[in-house]
């Protein structure tokens, strides 16, 4: 079993697509489904999934890209910190090109600030060990997939007694965002739930949402058969009138999730209200460091002047992140806003909706 080719088998995909077509053939209304994971956004575009769907299924992209939902103010804060003498900023690569109010980490790096791309928060620990005279600040963004590794790194740093490593946190959790979307103007008939987040939190995390809002939900993998299989599952749930939480991605996701990862997150972080770019504040949707780890909080340790937050003029990333508009609806898309000259995060992040449209759509 190679775990790639089997799930990209053309015949299997065709068969699922045909089943879907038949299931939707008597439906006069449009079924609107939303995925909330940047990797799903990319996979759907990369495999041309929309081409296989019947015309009465509409696929929307939600706020599933952790970089895209990070507010401008966070980038401005990171830039201000990078300008401190003796500071090394350690960041995931995607954050580097995101425009802040007037600058970006990439521009600051070119201007001589010490900004280094890392692949894991453990790299930041190594950096702190190797540069005892410098302050290392890790830009801690990401959803539940990424948070356990960050929490583990903080625990490791505390155990080692590292005094020159802090984290600028803007981590977020997915389920509260789903509730906010369901409470808004969007009429959704189902969620394609994030595969990797769910390996951590488990299918059970979504059951309260299914029960409260009676919305079909399916945790999906990232290959074509996974995605179309999950869409078919959601359609069948809708047609039968019995919404439930199903796990399509059963080869990686369980109902209980990864308890050790959940424990490590709870040990280090606690819920806090968080600002989602373009959506606004969502209660208990963010994570902040517990008081016993305050020494690792860059926002507490360092007092810097942060410029006034300004959003890119004309940028409608917020509406796109909520699935209310598509990238071509944005007057800047492909003109003032492109991967070379991004105005909003949705264009520059490798999992951004606008980046996916720009790269893959015909």
């Amino acid at each position, binding site marked *: 079993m*190679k775990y*790639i080719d089997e799930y*990209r088998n*053309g015949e299997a*995909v*065709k068969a699922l697509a045909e089943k879907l077509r038949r299931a939707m053939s008597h439906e006069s209304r449009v079924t609107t489904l939303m995925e909330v994971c*940047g*990797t799903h956004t990319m996979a759907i*575009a*990369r*495999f*041309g*999934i929309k*081409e*296989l769907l019947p015309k009465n299924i509409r696929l929307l992209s939600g706020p599933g890209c*952790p*970089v895209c939902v990070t507010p401008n103010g966070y980038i401005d804060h990171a830039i201000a910190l990078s300008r401190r003498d003796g500071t090394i900023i350690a960041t*995931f*690569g*995607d954050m580097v*090109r995101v425009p802040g109010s007037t600058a970006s980490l*990439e*521009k600051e*790096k*070119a*201007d001589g600030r010490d900004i280094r*791309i890392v*692949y894991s928060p453990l790299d930041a620990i190594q950096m702190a060990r190797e540069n005892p005279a410098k302050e290392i600040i890790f830009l801690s*963004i*990401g*959803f539940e*997939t*990424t948070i356990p590794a960050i929490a583990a790194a903080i625990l490791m740093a505390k155990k080692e007694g590292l005094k020159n490593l802090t984290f600028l946190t803007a981590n977020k959790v997915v389920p509260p965002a789903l509730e906010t979307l369901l409470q808004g103007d969007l009429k959704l008939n189902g969620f394609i739930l994030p595969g*990797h*987040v769910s390996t951590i939190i488990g299918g059970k995390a979504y059951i309260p949402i299914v029960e409260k809002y009676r919305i079909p939900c399916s945790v999906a993998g990232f290959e*074509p058969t996974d995605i179309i299989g999950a869409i078919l599952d959601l359609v069948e749930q809708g047609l039968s009138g019995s919404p439930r939480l199903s796990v399509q991605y059963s080869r990686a996701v369980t109902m209980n999730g990864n308890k050790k990862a959940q424990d490590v997150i709870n040990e280090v972080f606690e819920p806090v209200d968080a600002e989602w770019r373009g959506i606004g504040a969502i209660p208990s949707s963010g994570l902040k460091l517990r008081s016993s780890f305050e020494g690792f909080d860059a926002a507490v340790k360092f007092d810097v002047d942060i410029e006034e937050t300004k959003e890119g003029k004309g940028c409608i990333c917020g509406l796109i992140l909520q699935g209310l508009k598509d990238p071509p609806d944005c007057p800047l898309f492909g003109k003032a806003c492109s*991967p*070379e*000259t991004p105005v909003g995060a949705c264009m520059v992040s*490798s*999992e951004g909706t606008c980046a996916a449209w*720009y*790269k*893959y*759509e*015909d």
Partner: protein
Amino acid sequence: MQNQGTEVLRHRDTVSLAHGSGGRLTHDLVRDLFAKYFNNEYLSTLSDSAEIKLSALDILFTTDSYVVKPLKFPGGDIGKLAVCGTINDLAVMGARPAYISCSLIIEEGLELTVLKDIIGSMSKTADEAGVMIITGDTKVVEKGAADRLFINTAGIGLKIGSAVLGMGRIEAGDKILINGCVGDHGMAVMAAREGLGLSSNIKSDCSPLHKLIEAILQTASDERQVVKFMRDPTRGGLATTLCEIAESTGYDIEIDEKAVPISDSVKGISEVLGIDPLYSANEGKVVVVVSPDAADSVLKKMRFNPLGKNAQIIGAIKKGHGRVHLKTVIGTSRRITMLTSSQLPRIC
């Protein structure tokens, strides 16, 4: 005439890493700055080598600089790369590579054993390829002023026969071939550089292609020159080379994803990292555009050579608007566009 206020200068004040990635920003920099200032008939073709005439001899001349990190990686090192890269830039333009120069910029503190290994590698690669390194230069700079070692090689060679190779010869209906699996070099170097701790057998495909290419050029069909154009898909990968061809010619390109050879190891690691092998660098691959009726015989020629045993016909040139389309493994269609900057591993 010198031009000011070029496009690429309008948006930015400083050079960024993205300008060196081989993607869109690199192309903009070359087009809007270098080609504008170095404006002449030789440079303006922006080919892999410049074709000049000296006393009735058709000579190809090229140069390239090598800054790869780490200096040694599975399948090669910066020295082997520096020789093969310049050989290949000459070969894809239809030249038999003959002589190479070697300029070194060495950072103070580089271990002499490392330098010896790299020079030894260059010597071995050149000997096996039948080229000579005949001139060179060495500079040593203070610690911090260079990243261990930079190498520049320039090369010259004589044109083989009367092959006319260039994008101008490409026509609708032409087929596109590649000599083997893509993405190996980029993946091998990234895994080695970042110490990603992935156990795999991925090795750089770094190889001199001139003998394979000479065999391809000898595929004749009623004296017609069936090979129209060749390019080695280095930085930016196969996808970038295809975009360059489409944008320059105005033709569309259609690629069959099923036909593009990618090794299982590269496929697996690329999914874990979120890196697309189509955009990953190759250092032992050549994209060949040929007349449709000669595609099968060129393919056969390629497969006869050890560096072409996994060769495939991967697509075709169509009338269109300068776009590249991919027929995916599941039968749908999507665009291939030029990347802006280097790919980075996924966050989640």
